[in-house]
């Protein structure tokens, strides 16, 4: 294993640890509610006279629909990110023909 691979592995491990530690710390005792809804509760608690004056133009009908839309957002982003990284990588690994071609396009106004 080269040093580069080791650093990559350690970085991934660090991210996984930061993800797993909260789950272990609060195993069974916490529902991991979103901070957005906690803040909304705080407002209702400390400012009981306040009523929201506008509601969302569209709300997902159920938590299933909502998590599906969140998955869609992640998939769209992940897809574009993967495509871009894949293109960049293939450009590096294939011979220099494509960059030369785009070089002729660059000066166009």
């Amino acid at each position, binding site marked *: 294993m080269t040093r580069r691979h080791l650093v990559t592995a350690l970085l991934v491990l660090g991210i996984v640890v930061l993800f797993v530690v*909260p789950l272990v710390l609060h195993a069974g005792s916490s529902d991991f*509610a979103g901070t957005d809804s906690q803040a909304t509760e705080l*407002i209702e608690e400390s400012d009981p006279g306040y009523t929201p004056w506008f509601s969302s133009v569209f709300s*997902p009908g159920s938590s299933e629909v909502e998590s599906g839309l969140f998955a869609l*957002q992640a998939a769209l982003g992940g897809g574009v990110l993967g495509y871009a990284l894949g293109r*960049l990588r293939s450009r590096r690994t294939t011979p220099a023909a494509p960059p030369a071609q785009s*070089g002729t396009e660059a000066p166009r106004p």
Partner: protein
Amino acid sequence: MHIAEGFLPPAHAIGWTVAAAPFVVHGARCVVKEVREHPEATLLLGAAGAFTFVLSAIKLPSVTGSSSHPTGTGLGAVLFRPPVMALLGTIVLLFQALLLAHGGLTTLGANAFSMAIVGPWVGYGAYRLVTRLGGGLLPAVFAAMALSDLSTYVTTALQLAWAHPDATSGFLGAAAKFLGVFAVTQIPLALAEGLLGVLLFRVLTVNARPELERLGVLRPETGEPASTGAGELR
């Protein structure tokens, strides 16, 4: 970090929208200029936007027992400077406000100000500071990603405290409460985002070297004096 729809009084909603609008308009012009002058940067620009899009869709558990999502705005701020993220971040927030009922149209200005303006600028500042101090690229990227994330949530907490001061302890009391919800939860997530940013940058330094050199993120390698010129041409 979304302030829910309708939870800012009208004066605050309008005020934050007016405050954020010039940054977003300027950001849009920067994106158009970048794409027009450097079409080859579109790929990297797309990657920066997509990164924010993915990360803000992922809700992660935190040590406080609540969950929150990273922002991912530090990447684009380091690569393309903060104005570009003002547009890209706002597009993400608009998507979530319209389709997910997270955030909202009346709070879009305030949310854009924290996630698409303050976050990227703080991250960029951290990046510049660390590189200036000789910290190297990857530590600078770590600082940029982590602090753009954290500062976004601190801003949200302060915005809410301003709009909803505590009945007895006022702004400071409310700020302490909202920071307790947002900022503390966000610390481990910001660290995770910093590590993820370093991971991504290691991929980019190998695969997108010409772009990073042109954008001034990487110094052209001294062994190849032509690389600056080639980078310009591409």
